[in-house]
């Protein structure tokens, strides 16, 4: 069936709720309204009070979800825009993520935090960030990002089944994208495993969430060939898949929808440089957004985001000259 990504999320939650009565869904407008982004449509009708609207009160309901997860439930909490997590970050990175450790292994917190993330929808600077860096490097937390209806369905099911707190950042720009799938148990996507979505020999392109399509589009339009890796889980990321590909291609370009400073790709670049120094035939390049707030005007927002032609230009530089051409905002003359 032709499924939009938000419908796939709802189906994934539904299937886990059918399988496990301890799964509950809490969030703002998730019950009768089915969620602002319609990712919980139909759940309240089928599961009644297991799906509950909360006050606009992230610290309160995320904290309550931590307590519920510690005492037998498997809450799936929706954070409407991932920025709203900011007021409740303590409950995620300082409480939920550390409870197992601070209970000597006696308490698990099987909590899922779903949040819509990313730019491309014209929501402006405070509703368009990806903010992985708030969570990456927090011991005890897992973090996954789907790139399609199929992976959204498969990752949410894995996240709900996992016994640790898992954050799923759903690229908001992809909620409306359709994919023809018949979701079933066979589509469960394991956490910690990347997927090779295109094969080639000249370069490895790593994408996450919205940038998987960017990387694929770049590979399809160029005259070199690329391994395209859909990372799917950012914490822990799949070192095996990345190293296997880069040791084959010798070149790596990481396509990230986040600011250059502190972006997740820096960690992968460092690990590849450490492990595969001798295999690299060109510098590692990161295609990121500039270190500025997400602009609103559609023309600027489009330019701000990683684009396929920028990925192509970067790979061309590596293939032709074995050097990085630098990010577009340094190459192009932008006068402030």
């Amino acid at each position, binding site marked *: 069936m032709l499924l939009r990504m938000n419908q796939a999320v709802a189906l994934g939650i539904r299937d886990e709720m059918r399988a496990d009565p*301890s799964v*509950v869904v809490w969030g703002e407008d998730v019950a009768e309204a089915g969620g602002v982004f319609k990712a919980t449509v139909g759940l309240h009708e089928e599961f009644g009070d297991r799906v*509950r609207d*909360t*006050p606009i*009160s992230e*610290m*309160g*309901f*995320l*904290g*309550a*979800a*931590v*307590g*519920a*997860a*510690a*005492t*037998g*439930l498997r*809450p799936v909490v929706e954070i409407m825009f991932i920025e709203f997590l900011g*007021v409740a970050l*303590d*409950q995620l990175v*300082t*409480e939920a993520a*550390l*409870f*197992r*450790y*601070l*209970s*000597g*292994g*006696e*308490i*698990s917190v099987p909590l899922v935090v779903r949040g819509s993330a990313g730019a491309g929808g014209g929501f402006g600077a405070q509703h368009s960030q990806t903010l992985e860096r708030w969570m990456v490097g927090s*011991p*005890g937390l*897992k973090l996954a990002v789907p790139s399609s209806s199929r992976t959204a369905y498969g990752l949410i099911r894995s996240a709900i089944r*996992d*016994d*640790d707190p898992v954050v799923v950042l759903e690229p908001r720009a992809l909620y409306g994208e359709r994919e023809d799938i018949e979701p079933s148990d066979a589509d469960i996507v394991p956490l910690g495993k990347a997927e090779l979505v295109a094969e080639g020999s000249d370069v490895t392109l790593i994408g996450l969430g919205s940038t998987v399509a960017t990387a694929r589009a770049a590979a399809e339009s160029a005259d070199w060939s690329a391994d395209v890796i859909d990372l799917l889980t950012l914490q822990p990321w799949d070192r095996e898949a990345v190293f296997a590909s880069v040791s084959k291609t010798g070149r790596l370009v990481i396509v990230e929808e986040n600011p250059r400073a502190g972006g997740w790709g820096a960690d992968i670049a460092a690990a590849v440089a450490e492990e595969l120094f001798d295999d690299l035939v060109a510098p590692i390049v990161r295609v990121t957004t500039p270190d500025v707030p997400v602009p609103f005007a559609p023309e600027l927002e489009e330019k701000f985001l990683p684009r396929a032609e920028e990925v192509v230009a970067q790979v061309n530089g590596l293939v032709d000259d074995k050097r990085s051409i630098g990010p577009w905002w340094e190459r192009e003359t932008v006068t402030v």
Partner: protein
Amino acid sequence: MSELALSRRKALDDRVGQLRRMIEIRRTEENIQAMFAAGLVKGSTHTCQGQEAVSVALASVLRPDDVVTCTYRGHGHALALGLTPVEVMGEVLGRSSGSIGGVGGSMHLSNPSVGLLPTFAIVGAGIPVAVGAAIGRRSTGNDAIAVAAFGDGATNIGAFHEALNLAQVWKVPVVFLCENNLYGEYSRIDRTTPFEDLYRRAAAYDMPARAVDGQDVDSLAEELSREVDAARSTSSPRFVEVKTYRFVGHSRSDTAPYRRPGELDEWLKRDPIEILSNRLIAEGVLDAEQVKALDAEVTREVELAVDEVKASPPPPLSAMFANVTAEAGV
């Protein structure tokens, strides 16, 4: 561990057992301060001398499957709920004998088998968690409740207000237990909070609330029992403000020079251990010699626990990598 904790919990059914536990808490805290002064404790400690009746009264009215979230001033609650002095002091010293093997420290005690979730080092963080814990317990079909124990300072943080609001909107059986000892860290309540009678804050959430004396364990247990039963039977939240006082500073070597003159002396006249001792003597349950002997016996037990903790090894290197995620195992 849990059987011992449960039997220690059971010992609070008896008032002599309650007196014994209050003395144990007092002596444990004194030893922790002494070990801190001797350089044996790194970081910080937050002790609760003067507030022992709150811990013991609370633990005596809860069932082991009720859940408690409490703060980093949690040694007393942990001991009352069932942890041993070795488990508490072992954790404070970072030894393998600690309640989570020495990787947590003074602010992180835990024993879910008697309802103690890992104690919270972030002010207010445990309050919404208690709301969810009550929901989690109820989801398994039993009628357990949760208690959020927190200080006066926590009533100024957002988590407090969000938790009270959510508990009332969702009708969750939580007892919000505010231990008002008049000081948030080094600041007296009148410098940080518009009024001292914090039970009044619950009115904003249309929640039944009352203030009670925190120094007399008998009356406090009676009051708390009533509130706990009410939360349990009505499946709705209650708010209890306990008027109490810490006889020591906020943490470590804080001598609390910021106290109002004479304030400590007034509160020392209402020492919870003396109040119960004197009453048991007046009632003829114990005589003065027996109280003295009980004190000496508990003091000696805690000293032996100190020796045991000092002799116990630091955690092995593997403890650093254990229990981070489910995959990391134990």
